[in-house]
């Protein structure tokens, strides 16, 4: 018998302006670490983290995109497969906040219609340099009907909470399927994560 390593696979995507801390947010979540040196992400990268929610082992495959405009043709091709998208801005960078509407439009254009979205205002540890009030983040999130957290990858604030909440929201929308087979079926051409094909029976 092969051992099953996870029940569900969720694909998440991090987007937002260059330098807002997408990679750091992900690094904090996946490795519980923080690095101050800024290395611009080239195109697209990913990390894997398995979490347990409602008794299910959920493998999160989290795609980290480059915020720079020059990589957009590469990064937008990854929107389609995402089940959850985290839109990150920097509370110390007004421009990154203004660009949220641009990123939301990108989601509308390139992602699945039912994708779960979430807004993160990162670097909330830098209160002295804040230029975007928390209320403004909450307001824009409310307007678009999406969740909002202020996070800090550096101070480890709300990072895990944000990812787990997003995963829970996706799980809630996921049709329940009894894990009746111990083997992970890799041959059938069913849904990407193997639950779509056997739901609603």
């Amino acid at each position, binding site marked *: *018998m*092969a*051992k099953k*390593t996870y029940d569900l*696979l969720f*694909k998440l995507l991090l987007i937002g302006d260059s330098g807002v801390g997408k990679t750091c947010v992900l690094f904090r979540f996946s490795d519980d670490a923080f690095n101050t040196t800024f290395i611009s992400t*080239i*195109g*697209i*990268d*990913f990390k*894997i983290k398995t979490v347990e929610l409602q008794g299910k082992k959920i493998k999160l*495959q989290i795609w980290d995109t480059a915020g720079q405009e020059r990589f957009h*043709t*590469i990064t937008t*091709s*990854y929107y*389609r*497969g995402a089940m959850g998208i985290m839109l990150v801005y920097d509370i110390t960078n007004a421009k990154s906040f203004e660009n949220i509407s641009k990123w939301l439009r990108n989601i509308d254009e390139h992602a699945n219609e039912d994708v779960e979205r979430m807004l993160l205002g990162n670097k909330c540890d830098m209160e002295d340099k804040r230029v975007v009030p928390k209320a403004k983040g909450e307001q824009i999130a409310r307007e678009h009907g999406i969740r909002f957290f202020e996070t800090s990858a550096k101070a480890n604030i709300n990072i895990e909470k944000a990812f787990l909440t997003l995963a829970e929201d996706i799980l809630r929308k996921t049709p329940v399927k009894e894990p009746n087979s111990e*083997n*992970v079926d*890799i*041959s059938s*051409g069913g849904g*990407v*994560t*193997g639950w779509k094909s056997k739901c609603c029976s």
Partner: protein
Amino acid sequence: THLSLGYFALLCCQQNSYFIPASFGVVWFVMEFGEESSPALAFDKDAFELTVEDVYDISYVIGRDLLKISSTGEDVSDLQFRIVRVLEMFETLVNKYNLSLEELKMERDNLKSELDRVIKERSSGQATQTAGPNQLVVDLTDPNRPRFTMQELKEVLQERNQLKAQLMVAQEELQLYKSGILPQAEPAMVEVDLETPAATQHNPATINNAKEERTTIGKLFSFKRK
């Protein structure tokens, strides 16, 4: 406010019937109550450096001298009006000369900055002339010049991410073997989904790999695509 000599002359003729040239009288009057710099210095100046004010100084001095002569009883009225006429011509010429000089200086400065701009454009890349809007000029001697296409970068990134995924799967498996959870004979099958739109269209190599599933890594997982 440069009042012309003619204006001075007219003004004085109306104000008094004195035979002294009106204009010089007025200028003299102005100078007496103005600054006390010597008007005679204007005579020592280089002809090309004369200004209209210098001409007024000169006319003032000549007027004063004429006044001295006339006080001896000589009739200098004809001479006086000829001098006024010559001084007026002098005034016009100096005025015109100074204006032309100013114009030429401005034109020279304009041409100079235009030349600088053209030279700068030339040196900042000869290819500028051939590059249209939205085009980038590449310096072929720059080791960091852009060299690869977006498609090439896309493929390299896909391969990197696939290898990374495979490594993760292998590490996971190794961990399971080490902890003795897995029997040696049966490798676990783990699905790693790295499907991207581009992978479906542009990477036949991975499609073959997935179909064959003969390699060790192929037994461990497969790539799925829609």
